[in-house]
């Protein structure tokens, strides 16, 4: 019957409304977290700037070269550090990073070199494990709010594996946060440390005032560099994690906003259908009353039809007729 359809529609509208409330809440939460995440990205800049400067000063003083972290070697195995979210519901955020990594891995395989995946975030782990890629290690549980300790853990693992010779090159794949409205998937070499970053560079290396060359070192430059480089790797990973977290929130906010908009649209359409169904059932009901009354009236058809007119009105509006 028509009333049944109306009830079903009412149920659907209610469930879409409930979903909309959830997506709206997620959107607002993500929006507020973007701001916080952005501040964390900004707060991490002084440290990474200064540590880069120190590395440059050391390189300028000739303390470089012995550390294997600086010297590249023949690349047999490339490790991809894939930074994704722990959770879904963030649009194309995870897919973007995973696809970029997969493309790089395929290139490596075609070239005949080996690869390994270091998955950061549950989504990356699930994706690569399901497809049978080689996963060396997984880190998870901090994607939306990473701390330096998390970066340190990853950094220590990478340095250890690199020094042990298990991996010859490390690439970071993550989503760089440019602004709340724009993020991009980037791939950055992490180890061995880029020559141009470390040597000379644009800092106050060996420039006019000549101070850089006159640095006193304690202990000697080589030892400092050995303790410094792992920290530098960690700082780079930390910056990548923070960027990824901010991007994750931005993606989630956008995804949830469009989900909320879609829900609104759906509610509008369903309400329209439901109202029509209700109207139909009212019309049907009136028709039933009319035909019922007509059947009861028996012989004098003409008189009855005239008298029924006010009854039709009374059905839709409670007018005190007769």
């Amino acid at each position, binding site marked *: 019957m028509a009333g049944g359809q109306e009830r079903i529609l009412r149920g659907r509208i209610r469930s879409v409304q409930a979903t909309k409330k959830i997506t709206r809440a997620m959107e607002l939460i993500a929006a507020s977290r973007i701001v916080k995440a952005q501040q964390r990205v900004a*707060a*991490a800049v002084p*440290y990474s700037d200064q540590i880069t*400067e120190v590395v440059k*000063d050391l390189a300028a003083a000739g303390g470089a070269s012995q550390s294997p972290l600086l010297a590249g070697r023949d690349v047999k195995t490339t490790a991809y550090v894939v930074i994704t979210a722990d959770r879904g519901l963030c649009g194309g955020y995870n897919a973007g990073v995973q696809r970029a990594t997969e493309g790089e891995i395929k290139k490596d395989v075609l070239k005949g070199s080996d690869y390994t995946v270091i998955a950061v975030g549950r989504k990356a782990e699930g994706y690569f494990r399901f497809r049978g890629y080689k996963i060396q290690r997984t880190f998870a549980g901090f994607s939306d709010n990473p701390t330096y300790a998390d970066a340190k853990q990853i950094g220590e693992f990478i340095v250890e594996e690199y020094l042990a010779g298990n991996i010859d090159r490390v690439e970071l794949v993550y989503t760089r946060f440019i602004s709340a409205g724009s993020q991009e998937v980037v791939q950055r070499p992490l180890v061995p440390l880029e020559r141009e970053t470390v040597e000379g560079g644009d800092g106050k290396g060996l420039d006019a005032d000549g101070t850089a060359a006159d*640095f006193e070192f304690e*202990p000697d430059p080589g030892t*400092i560099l050995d303790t410094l480089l792992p920290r530098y790797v960690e700082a780079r990973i*930390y910056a990548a994690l923070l960027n990824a977290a901010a991007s994750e929130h931005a993606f989630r906010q956008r995804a949830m906003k469009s989900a909320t908009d879609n829900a609104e649209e759906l509610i509008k359409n369903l309400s329209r259908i439901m109202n029509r169904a209700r109207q139909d059932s009212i019309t049907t009901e009136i028709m039933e009353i009319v035909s019922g009354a007509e059947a009861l009236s028996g012989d004098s058809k003409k008189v009855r039809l005239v008298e029924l007119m006010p009854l039709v009105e009374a059905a839709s509006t409670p007018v005190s007729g007769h």
Partner: protein
Amino acid sequence: MASFTVELVSPEKVLFSGEATQVITRTLGGGEIAFLPGHAPFLGALTENHTRITLADGNVLDVAVHGGFVQVSGDKVSILSDVAELGEQIDRTRAITAKERAEESLRKEHDAEAVAALSRAHARLNASGGMAGLNSGSH
């Protein structure tokens, strides 16, 4: 009096930034070192230590620095550290417990982790009001 800018930076934020007249810290294997304005450019790796920053107004800022680097160039001193805590924010009771625990395990066997824990606790205690007044009943 001459002063220079001191910055104490951890990966997560800038802990302190301001004018100071003297900085005392401890380098890896090199012992304590003090910087005054006009110091020659210097770059050093730090151990766990109690760093003292004499501010321009004469107050001393105590900081527990758990490893890191110091860079002096021009009129600027930068201390980079993974973990650094300002003296007033240190939980002394926790540091004391940590110290006792480390000493306890060191009495049984000599392991690097306990040594590191002990020196961390020492740095914390020194920075948060000195070792004096502590009942070092462990000796």
